[in-house]
């Protein structure tokens, strides 16, 4: 029960309260570039959610098995070259960024090939966005958040397990989709408006984004309220 509550709170927080786009500003480039039509926005959101889930899975696995101090695989390999207590302290976290970006790039490649081969119609709807996702900060940000919750915690019991990491990946992607689809809907309406010349294009998008961010600020504190309500329930 405690665990389910944890997952639930992580999900709500990633999707709404600390929305990736409107709170952390990651994934702004597609938010401004691709949010012109609702169907394209849905395609992009789907692609990001998909890749984010896979990337979070890979990065959680690599971090806890290889990169973090005292990880099983790296200390097992190091055990051949040095004494056991020294091997247990092997710390490869300095390689994190390089490993993550490599994992993201290769998983995007794999997903692209797989989708093109087995789901041609799906590929048509969001395949063109897949290469763009490699340089999407939202994916790397999700991986880094997972890392800071696995490696950076003081108390080993607080470290995230795979379920919590996946919840962040999936619902971070859902939050991204929510933001970009709302934005696309607003922009479709904006096309019919008389916007002052200097504001056309990115400027008005940013201001609309600001108003959206204000709306999403309304969710602040929902998580602690929910936690208190759910914990006190019988």
């Amino acid at each position, binding site marked *: 029960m405690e665990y389910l509550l944890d997952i639930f709170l992580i999900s709500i927080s990633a999707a709404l309260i600390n929305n990736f786009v409107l709170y952390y*500003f990651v994934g702004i480039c597609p938010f401004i570039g691709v949010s012109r039509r609702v169907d394209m926005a849905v395609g992009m959101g789907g692609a990001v959610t998909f890749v984010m889930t896979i990337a979070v899975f890979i990065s959680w696995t690599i971090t806890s098995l290889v990169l973090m101090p005292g990880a099983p695989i790296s200390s097992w390999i190091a055990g051949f070259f040095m004494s056991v207590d020294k091997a247990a302290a092997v710390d490869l976290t300095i390689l994190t*960024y390089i490993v993550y*970006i490599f994992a993201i790039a290769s998983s995007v490649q794999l997903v692209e090939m797989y989708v093109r081969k087995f789901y041609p119609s799906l590929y048509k709807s969001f395949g063109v966005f897949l290469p763009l996702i*490699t340089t999407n900060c939202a994916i790397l940000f999700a991986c880094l*958040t997972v890392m800071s919750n696995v490696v950076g915690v003081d108390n080993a019991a607080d470290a995230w397990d795979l379920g919590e990491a996946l919840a962040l990946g999936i619902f971070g992607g859902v939050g991204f989709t929510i933001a970009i689809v709302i934005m696309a809907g607003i922009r479709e309406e904006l096309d019919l408006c008389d916007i002052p010349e200097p504001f056309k294009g990115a400027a008005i998008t940013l201001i609309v984004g600001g108003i959206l961010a204000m709306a999403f600020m309304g969710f602040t504190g929902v998580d602690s309220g929910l936690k208190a309500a759910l914990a006190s329930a019988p």
Partner: protein
Amino acid sequence: MANLPTTTERFIQGILPENPVYRQLLGLCPTLAVTNGLQPALTMAAAVGLVLLSANIIVSLIRNLLKPHLRIVVFTLTIATFVTIVDRLLAAYMYPMSKTLGPYIPLIIVNCIIICRCEVCASKQSVVTAAADAVGQALGFGLALCSIAAIRELLGAGMLAGIPVMPSAWPAWVIMVLPPGAFLTFGLLMALVNWVGAARSNNAGKGD
């Protein structure tokens, strides 16, 4: 190669005519995220500038060895290496600042400005030109970041770089240092830049 801009042109272009933030809309993630004060904005601009300069120099040195289909991977790995170095430097010498910037330092890896400069300039031109281009773009990026950060910090906290400048009666507009303020300030500044640009090109047109 004849049509590529020269060293000086590259340097000048980066600062205003092709400003990475206002004109090319690149690197928006740090632009919005770390501009709630001048100090984080300056640190971020310096970090991006350092990575950009090093990556441009390395890519320019190996430009004849690059295979077309592998070049993006090479760029990304070069950038990731330098970002790791910058991250460790910051953590060693400016620990509180590296805590403030948090995940936005590693996110420099996927900052489009750097990949874009490697692709557009460093993989085609000599080391000197690539370095000048990097410095120009970094200055342009820093300028954009500081302009946004100065307005946000001034209105949101009544301070500049941590020093109070507004009268103490100033009711700090807290919204400006929160996420919506970033979008609003940047949107208004972008409209201002567009407006000034349009007015100048109109005047130039009349002058002819």
